């Protein structure tokens, strides 16, 4: 009979019509500004720079090694290495980025900078409702705007951040152990040969 398939289709749409009033599985729309989906841990939007401690400038993990700048596929990162060294969060003197800019109008959120960073200094943010009315200035993020605390990183990517922190703690413990060993060795050496002490390297700096 002609029209059978059409009737079947009409029944199907009617089922969906009423189904959208009773079941949540049909009406999957999320009313965005009022409702939000739960934050997904793996989500990524744009990169940010992690710092430890209270001061963003002092605690910046980045050592301006410029690997991410080289590896970034669309080349949206600009880093200028500092001339001097500054103690980092642990207290080690390190180079630091005098300039660290990311043009997020170019960035394509591929996460390759995060993967290549050996210092766990750059991570992906999850903030997605970004907008600005300034087309040039506001889309070029400088060091200050890129800096986010380690606590923030822990809040958005808990699993990953815990692993990173554990790794850092291990490193720090190792360094401390080494330093302790070094000071002990130094003390012992001093006790043995006092004049030779000046030539000993300072512990922890050998990395």
């Amino acid at each position: 009979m002609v029209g059978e398939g059409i009737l079947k289709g009409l029944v199907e749409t009617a089922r969906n019509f009423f189904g959208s009033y009773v079941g949540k599985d049909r009406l999957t729309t999320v009313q965005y500004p009022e409702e939000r989906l739960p934050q997904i841990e793996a989500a990524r939007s744009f990169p940010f720079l992690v710092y430890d401690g209270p001061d963003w400038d002092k605690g910046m993990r980045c050592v301006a090694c410029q690997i991410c700048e080289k590896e970034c596929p669309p080349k949206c990162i600009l880093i200028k290495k500092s001339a001097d060294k500054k103690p980092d969060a642990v207290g080690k003197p390190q180079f630091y980025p005098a300039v660290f800019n990311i043009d997020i109008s170019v960035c394509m959120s591929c996460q390759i900078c995060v993967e290549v960073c050996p210092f766990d200094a750059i991570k992906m943010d999850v903030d997605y409702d970004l907008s600005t009315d300034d087309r040039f200035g506001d889309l070029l993020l400088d060091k200050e705007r890129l800096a986010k605390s380690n606590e923030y990183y822990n809040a958005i990517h808990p699993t990953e951040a815990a692993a990173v922190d554990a790794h850092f703690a291990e490193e720090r413990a190792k360094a401390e152990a080494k330093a302790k060993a070094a000071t002990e060795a130094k003390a012992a050496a001093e006790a043995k040969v006092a004049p030779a002490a000046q030539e000993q390297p300072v512990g922890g700096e050998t990395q």
Partner: protein
Amino acid sequence: MTQALDQIFVLTKQWLLGFVPASAQPICSAILSVVPVLIGFPLLFAITTWLERKGLGRLQNRYGPNRTGPYGLFQPIADAIKSLTKEDIVPLTADHTVHFLAPVLLAAASFLGYAVLPIGRNMVLVNMNAGVLYFFAVGSVVELAVFMAGWSSRSKYSLLGAMRAIAQMISYEVPLVLASIVAIMQAGSLSTVAIVDKQAGYTGIWPHWFVFTPWGVVGFALFMIAATAESNRSPFDLPEGESEIIAGYYIEYSGFKFALFFLGEYLGMFATSGMAITLFLGGWSAPFSFLTWIPSYVWFFAKLLALIAGFIWIRGTLPRLRMDQLMSLAWEFILPMALLNMLDAGIWHFMPAGVLRWLVCTAIVAVPCVLLGQGLKRNKKFQVRTYQFAK
């Protein structure tokens, strides 16, 4: 009390007319009758756009508009503001006068049909002797407006759209008229009021609507198919087929002129639906004898909204036909069925009432309908296929 409520608009009009001098009464009477129609149906258009968007949304598992006011109810107002404030772009090479006149003519012609629609008891603008004829006559003016729009835009797409639209409207006008002839035959009058009056009685609780006869139901179905095509609604929306020729004849219109096209189209849809209600669904009469206390105009609009809901439902489900298929549907299926239906109505008229009449008349329309459908299907050679898998 129910009587007064039913006639409230008629009585109000008479009361208001009492205030004007006798010499001015005819013109005032005309104004008092026309203005509510000019306001009421565009208002219904606004409600329908909201209903359609909400309904289609739910059919498609979406919310539909819900940002303007509660449940998005102010969406039509927002749309109106938008279309009023948009720039009115006229193509440089367009024929400016005709380009301007087309939407005006379309909207004006769409209103003309309402003159003979009985909206309620004693509520018809003109009780014309040849009401149905008038309705179809003014309906044909719309084609001219469509042509003007398509031609004056000087766009290839709009020309294609206009050609499609005119071919479709002419083809479907024939089945539309032929499908309505059965009701005219039975009522013995071309007057819409007489046709409604003929359907006003009840047997037990059941009304004497024409749709409750074998020829009536076939006539109604054919009329609705043809009406869908006449008003360019999906699945017959080829003239504006947005995925093919983008918007057809009104592709070069923007702003308020575009809104006028929209208005004209919906008014046409309401008018043909109203005619279907008048011819087959008993006009303003209540569906059961115990519901006659509800005012007649309420029933008319309830039926109209039900038909509109049907239009929306079909729009949300079916893909569009192709031009040649549309034509073959009109000439190979609807036209023969409409002619056969006329014969059936004649036989019904002359046979004595009873079960036999029902059986005979049902058989006369049902058997050819199935046979014709099967034959066409076989002729077109389409079927649900089965598929092989590679070993």
